[in-house]
């Protein structure tokens, strides 16, 4: 089925074709809110601003289709009008202006998900289909607007976290979910180890947990679900009697959007991705670094000058780490830049080869975001 292309898309295609001819490259830009976590080598800015349409939204389908330049804030507002939301809580990092907190295209390309990730899935789990302009300037459509689709390879999900290296995403169809009836948040003082042990027990039966974090001294728990199941869970586990702020919704927004005081200041910020329920507290404390545990122990945020021990730590746990302060050149050299990027030399040879071949399959002339994911492409 062919698609009628709109003038903004035709113009982008033209620009891509031009770059191919000239041998030049682009840096794809939405709201430029994620410059701290990635750094392509070179190129003229190619903005997705003109792609600002909501293509289709029918709440009873649980699917929304929007163009890449639509802001995440606007998309979430649209969904909220019909009592729905994105399940993966994309972070809204502060941008150049208050309204510019990230575009849908950047959300897909960076593949970043918020505190709800372990329970509701990541960006990739919500992507149903997308359109993109390849490095050859071809307009391609993959997946669709339906919940299930196994026709051809799952190229749509391949674009999630690819940092725009494989093409310019022009529109995407996302699975959405109804807002929960009840939300409640709890916080109390305890150790990270204690919290994780408690969670290990909780998760063995049905529970409404949708956030589990620790800041080195306090536990933070968020419940979302039916009104009854949230209050029952809280009373069964004595959560109502916990001291501290009860409705600490601000904490969760701050964790999601990196606006907590923890994220302020100049000390380099690192993200560690490790298996769920990994307890890094004692090691991190022994190095006297401040940290935030998120995702029930599958994601840690760490402020540290020195990284040797971080590298050791993630290797030991089969995880990975990356810099969240890419403005700092030296950090880039010790860890990768983007969420999906890799510290130099860390990738298995055969897998790296596949990455390089995929890059040439989608963007043979290196038009898009060169070096954003790996130095070799």
């Amino acid at each position, binding site marked *: 089925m062919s698609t009628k292309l709109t003038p903004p898309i035709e113009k982008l295609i033209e620009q891509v074709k031009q770059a191919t001819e000239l041998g030049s490259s682009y840096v794809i830009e939405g709201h430029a809110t994620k410059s701290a976590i990635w750094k392509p080598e070179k190129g003229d800015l190619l903005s997705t601003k003109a792609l600002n349409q909501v293509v289709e939204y029918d709440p009873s389908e649980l699917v929304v289709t929007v163009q890449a330049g639509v802001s995440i804030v606007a998309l979430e507002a649209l969904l909220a009008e019909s009592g729905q939301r994105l399940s993966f809580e994309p972070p809204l990092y502060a941008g150049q202006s208050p309204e510019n907190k990230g575009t849908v295209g950047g959300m897909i390309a960076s593949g970043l998900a918020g505190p709800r990730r372990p329970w509701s899935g990541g960006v990739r789990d919500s992507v149903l289909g997308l359109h993109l302009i390849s490095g050859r300037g071809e307009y391609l459509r*993959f997946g669709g607007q339906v919940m299930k689709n196994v026709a051809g390879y799952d190229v749509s999900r391949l674009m999630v976290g690819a940092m725009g290296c494989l093409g310019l995403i022009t529109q995407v169809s996302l699975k959405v979910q109804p807002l929960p009836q009840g939300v409640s948040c709890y916080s109390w003082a305890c150790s990270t180890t204690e919290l994780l042990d408690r969670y290990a027990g909780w998760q063995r039966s049905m529970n409404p947990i949708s956030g589990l974090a620790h800041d080195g001294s306090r536990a933070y728990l968020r419940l979302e*679900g039916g009104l009854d199941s949230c209050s029952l869970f809280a009373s069964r586990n004595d959560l109502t009697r916990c001291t501290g702020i009860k409705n600490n919704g601000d904490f969760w927004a701050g964790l999601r959007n990196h606006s907590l005081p923890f994220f302020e200041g100049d000390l380099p910020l690192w993200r560690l991705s490790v*298996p769920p329920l990994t307890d890094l507290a004692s090691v991190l404390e022994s190095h006297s670094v401040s940290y935030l545990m998120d995702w029930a122990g599958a994601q840690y945020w760490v402020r540290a000058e020195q990284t040797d021990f971080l590298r050791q730590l993630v290797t030991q746990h089969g995880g990975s780490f990356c810099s969240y302060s890419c403005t700092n050149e030296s950090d880039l050299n010790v860890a990768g830049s983007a969420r999906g990027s890799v510290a130099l030399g860390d990738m298995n040879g055969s897998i790296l080869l596949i990455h390089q071949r995929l890059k040439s399959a989608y963007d043979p002339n290196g038009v898009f975001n060169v070096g954003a994911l790996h130095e070799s492409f």
Partner: protein
Amino acid sequence: MTIAHDERIDGPLSGWQRHELLAMFEKCLPAHCILSADEELKPFECDGLSAYRSQPQLVILPDTKEQLIVLVKCCAENKVPIVPRGAGTGLSGGAMAIDGGVMVSLTRMNQILNIDERRMTAKVQPGVRNLAISEAVQNLGLYYAPDPSSQIACSIGGNVAENAGGVHCLKYGLTVNNVLGVECILADGSLVQVGGDCLDNPGFDLLALLHGSEGMLALVTEVTVKLLPKPELCRTYLVSFDDVEKAGRAVGAVIGKGIIPAGMEMMDKLAIQAAEDFAHAGYPRDAQAVLICEMDGETSDVESLDAPLRAILTEEGATEIRMARTPEEQRKFWLGRKSAFPAVGRLAPDYYCMDGTIPKRQLPSVLKGIAALSEKYNLAVANVFHAGDGNLHPLILFDANIPEQLNKAEALGGEILALCVQLGGCITGEHGVGREKINQMCIQFEGSELEQFLATKKAFDPQGILNPNKNIPTLARCAEFGAMHVHDGQLPFPELERF
């Protein structure tokens, strides 16, 4: 146009003869892993789509991944095509043998390697049956969520290769949403880990790309799956309608009001009657359609949704809402649905199962369209749908012994899939393209998109030895199929080389 391999448009076959292949593998693999006698090969001549048969020249049954690596390296060196096969329950001919190639059955690699109770994951070999995982963790109160109707037989390796769904994937997701990592062998014989125990990994999301790739990008040798706690309460409703279209609209209404059932299945009159004759599930024979709606979760949530659910269904015109009162009754409600295929199989000597998907709001239109096509071809169609996620399984009834009936059934099926595409859906929701829907891919995608798929395949498998010629048609095939869209008055691909 037939789906059979046509060297002119699908490319040349390898030309290897059975004795040559046998000599090749006898050198590097133990004899008990190699099947070469006709009577041993017979069971491998088709998968669950029995209308298409082609006996493999050789079947290898490795016991270990080390043997598999040896095999792949040998194939890579000699350019021998490899057709992976799990339990052979696939419904699109994905595990259909190719001349000049070797079939690799992974059923002997069927061990559950590790259950991590604390992290709630299981690491299993590819030949482990889907249901065996849930059985192995039942004592822990856990289960593996994706539940294809073939779950007693199908393998987890096959599930990954097809991105299998199930009756509960509306709420719990498909295979891709429930697998954390796989270990696999690439086309050059190297063993790699893709994904793992973390929630994300550096680099491209190759794990997602491997799901549904039909054994064409890598051979899966280990799978790490997520386990979930069993729901506290599970309620099953059998809802009758006097009109199929009303039933279709009710599905959208329930979901649109924010209620996500664990499963939402729909059957039409022909399917209801067949199922009732077969399973005596107590289905209402006079209904034009039934919905089987399952609500699960925490007790209080499931209970509190009972009244709103009934209200919506009633408003949408349900003539009867029955909630299973006992586990026995619940089992019966599902028995009817789960035996729908064999039940319909008794209505006619053969049936052909389709797998299109559509946006839910199109259910009424697609039902009308299917009825009209059924009349046009004069073949009955029974409809069984995973209605909650818009996945249709129209079952076309025919008799392969009557000349031309298989062709008619294929043509009718092809038109149903084209209708799904036209209504904004796709040609396959969970059964895969395999060889069966190779021509319909030309309707779903444009030439440039198919070329991108072929390039993706090449990035993994430059020599094209892994399950070649499945899933993605050559442009030459599409040009001949004649369904390519004409651009700017130009004929599609006049310049294309014919092999």
